[in-house]
């Protein structure tokens, strides 16, 4: 699971959960893969992201490096910044671990990089 997915993912399909975001990551295995840099895509995604949640997630995986804590208003032209964002969003992958719902503490296992968001019938 890439951090861009994590930034979109919530646990609000659980009964009684309103926001369910951000999910806490407890990773046991993290991998970095090379993905082609597409500045246009990253620029388009930045307004949609919850930047604080992204920084938190990156920090918990220990890959924050020198990613700025806030978005530069002029980020379209700042290639350095876009490259850093690209690395954190698309190149860091959680392979094994767990996602934890911030409200109920329900754990969603991550196996082979695929989070299991299936719920039991009594949780819907």
């Amino acid at each position, binding site marked *: *699971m*890439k951090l*861009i*997915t994590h*930034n*979109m*993912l*919530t*646990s*609000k*399909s659980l009964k009684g959960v309103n926001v*369910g*975001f951000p999910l806490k990551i407890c990773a046991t295995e993290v991998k970095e893969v090379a*993905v082609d840099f*597409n500045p*246009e*895509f990253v620029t*388009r*995604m930045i307004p*949609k992201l*919850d930047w604080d949640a992204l920084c938190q997630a990156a920090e918990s995986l220990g890959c924050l490096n020198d990613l700025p804590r806030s978005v530069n208003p002029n980020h379209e032209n700042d290639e350095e910044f876009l490259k850093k964002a690209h690395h954190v969003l*698309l190149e860091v992958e959680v392979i094994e671990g767990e996602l934890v719902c911030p409200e109920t503490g329900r754990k969603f296992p991550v196996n*082979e*990089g*695929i*989070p*299991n*968001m*299936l*719920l039991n*019938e009594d949780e*819907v």
Partner: protein
Amino acid sequence: MAASTRRPEHKAPPDIFYNEEEARKYTSNTRMIEIQSQMTERALELLALQEDVPCFILDIGCGSGLSGQTLEESGHFWIGVDISSAMLSVALEREVEGDMMLGDMGQGMCFRAGSFDGAISISALQWLCNADKTSHSPPKRLFKFFSTLYSCLSRGSRAVFQFYPENSEQIELITQQAMKAGFTGGLVVDYPNSTKAKKMFLVLFTGGHQKLPKALGTEEQQNTGTDHIPYSDKRERMKQIRGKAPKKSRDWILEKKERRRRQGRNVRPDTKYTGRKRSGKF
């Protein structure tokens, strides 16, 4: 019940039906692969995304990532959701670029509001019409799915579903729940005159009423392609009076070719050689 055994939904729930063996077919069977990618291309066309802009797409029922690959080729980034872990492991083997997760459509799409620029789904929606557990209620699950999908799409975007409805009640059930969730839009049926090439697409809009895209292989489209023939109605009536053309005659061949063209099949163009006898020399 002879027909129902052909429908995978009647055999087992999707997480059980798509086991390792079934999933394997999606890498080895070239015909299946071809059909899947053709349908994805058409779905992408109906999605009408801005040209040359990389978009963030949700693929519902992504399976082994065949549809995702078509999205990648068009330069989009995708997230896939599927209920079958066997299908997702095949996708991992195929090394698709998108990110995937295990999830059930009927339990809702658990994404933040406005995350995606569009959603596609190839041959998955009909599974929601079945109740595989006693606690399942298809209308409720459909509504949950459509309402959560509506919220995770950005305004003005579209969702395109290719699906195989079993009967007209299922189509009604699905569209009803989609409209209840706030979507507008409707059904686009490609090649409606052919049993084999016929494909159903549910095209849903999030941003108010828009004109539905035209289906392929319908009468209107053919008329715009060629010049409209005046008095064609009268001619048609005269033809009916005269009755059908005798078999193997040129008219009979032309009529047959026309019929096949309407079904969306590959038919050679009509020329002066059509239906002409060979000379004795041959």
